[in-house]
């Protein structure tokens, strides 16, 4: 007997009484989505910045390798997606578009329509995500409503830069993923 058949039959043999599956109700959401989102993402060590501040930052930073799949910032893009992720190991900055942004926790949903290559938001040293204000929602339930049963092979909620507190609970920003996350709300 295969392991699958063995496991399934062990469960079936228990003849468990079915318990009901609840419906998920609506909950109250924050009134000011934009400022709640900004607070949430700041709490995760990310930052909402105006376009002007971002432009200034890029100018001052002297980033040598910048990738952008966001039309609004395509003038900064000076490289192409390489055939293998390792080709982006030296990527300084990635500017990507997000689809849905959640006010309660700063999470932003991106899927393969925003990611030409899955590794981009993780392997880059610094990350900027651009979101439209009309795509802000209050909580995760609303986010999943908006995303639906969408068929992308990969999707991710990114809520901040990479971080860790594994060294005696001291929070350090910049573990293995991006060392910073800036969000531009347009």
């Amino acid at each position, binding site marked *: 007997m*295969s*392991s*699958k058949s*063995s*496991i*399934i039959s*062990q*469960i079936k043999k*228990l003849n*468990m009484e*079915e*318990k*009901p*599956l*609840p419906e*998920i109700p609506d*909950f*109250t959401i924050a009134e000011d989505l934009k400022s709640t989102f900004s607070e*949430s993402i700041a*709490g*995760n060590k990310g930052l909402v910045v105006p376009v002007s501040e971002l432009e200034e930052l890029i100018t001052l930073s002297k980033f040598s390798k910048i990738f952008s799949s966001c039309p609004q910032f395509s003038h900064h893009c000076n490289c192409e997606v390489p055939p293998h*992720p*390792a080709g982006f*190991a030296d990527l300084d900055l990635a500017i990507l578009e997000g689809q849905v942004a959640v006010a*309660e*926790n*700063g*999470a932003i949903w991106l899927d393969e329509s925003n990611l030409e*290559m*899955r*590794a981009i938001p*993780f*392997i880059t040293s610094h990350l900027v995500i651009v979101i439209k204000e009309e795509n802000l929602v209050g*909580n*995760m*339930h609303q986010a*999943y409503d908006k995303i639906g*049963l969408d068929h992308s*092979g*990969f*999707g*991710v*909620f*990114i*809520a901040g*830069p*990479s*971080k*860790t507190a*594994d*060294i*005696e*609970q*001291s929070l*350090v920003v*910049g*573990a*293995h*993923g*991006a060392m910073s996350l800036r969000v531009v709300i347009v």
Partner: protein
Amino acid sequence: MSHPANAALFLKDQSRAKWHDETLWIVRQKRDLTIHQIPEWEQLRDLASQIKEHTLSKLDFYLEELERNATANGIKVHWAENAAEHNEIIGRIIDEKNCTAIVKSKSILTEECHLNPFLEAKGIEVVDTDLGERIIQFLKQPPSHIVMPAIHLKKSDISDIFHEKLQTEKGNIDPVYLTQAARLHLREKFLQAKVAITGVNFGVAETGEFVVCTNEGNADMGVHIADTHIACMGIEKLIPRRKDLGIFLRLLARSATGQSITNYNSHFRSPAPGKELHLILVNNGRTKQLGREKFRNSLKCIRCGACMNTCPIYRRSGGFSYGSTVPGPIGSILSPGIDLKKYSTLPFASTLCGSCSDVCPVKINIHEQLYEWRQEITKAQGTSAKGIAMKLANGLFQSPLAYRLSGKAMRASLKNLPNSVIYNPLNVWGKSRDLPPVPTETFKEWYKKNKK
């Protein structure tokens, strides 16, 4: 292996034990702060509990749905009856890829199955990429907490091992410096690895996808650079619908560390073009636990670790004192199902205070299951008169309750015997506590005199 003996040892280093307790209490406080910002928190817990109980009651149905949909998405689904099979499947995939070095992100399931030693015996280098896990891997220790594996270590401990393994400056305990060193070191490993192993936080039956949550981004760094992604999932980690993720992702990080959400929540549905994605569904005793009606609900667990952070005993004895892969309150109701004899002291390593049950995001009645395991353990140990007498002799008679049985004579003797006799070393109660002062008469005696 006895929890009390390990706990006593842990407490010998008073200042370190206090630091450990304080550190975990702070995590509990962070959790409290954030949950009080969610007015519907208790409702979310109820919903999560109901969703999990429903799923467990139809687990066969949902497992088959998950397999069907995942396979249609291009994921290769494997089933493992036990730890050995889980390890073999992984070993085979790695061999097929002619791979000798792999990266792995946090998966307590792989700890449970002892995957690392299995692969290392085959000559495969396993690099645990979660920072806490890499640290304990260097130190050849198991995790002491399921979410914060290196919580028992101080900066100086980590600085020392990094100096040895990564050639960081001796004595430099700056967390930023140490983390940067780890980032550089592990980046090399990510870029070289052809196979990446992850755990699974949630498997979604409806869409055939699974979700992995991290703060460090190490799971993603591993799988998006490698050609083959192997995801290991306990069969109980299933939820029915994609929208159920809304509930669980709102509960998980808040319960675990007090964050509103982890920084990365990756949803894997299909392999990237040209790559492979494997999902291993593992039983390893879970169907047995499912069959134990009183303990079935322990399988609702989403591995947040909140019960460990709140447990006054865990905080004062450390994860290692439990001797089990999963320690603390949840570990104490899962482990006896695996080996009743080996883990028989664990359900007694508790005052049944109930704090764990009240922080559990999926409302597992942990403290009630601890009580029920005690009944099972004494049953297994035999309830002969001798058995009871033994238990009583070891426990009850050494407490003040014993004196009740002996009545007036004993109470009188308590007043008149010298302290050295009463507080002899064999009397465990008296080691650090005085016995209660002895009144002149019992309530019964007073009542008879004054009220009858």
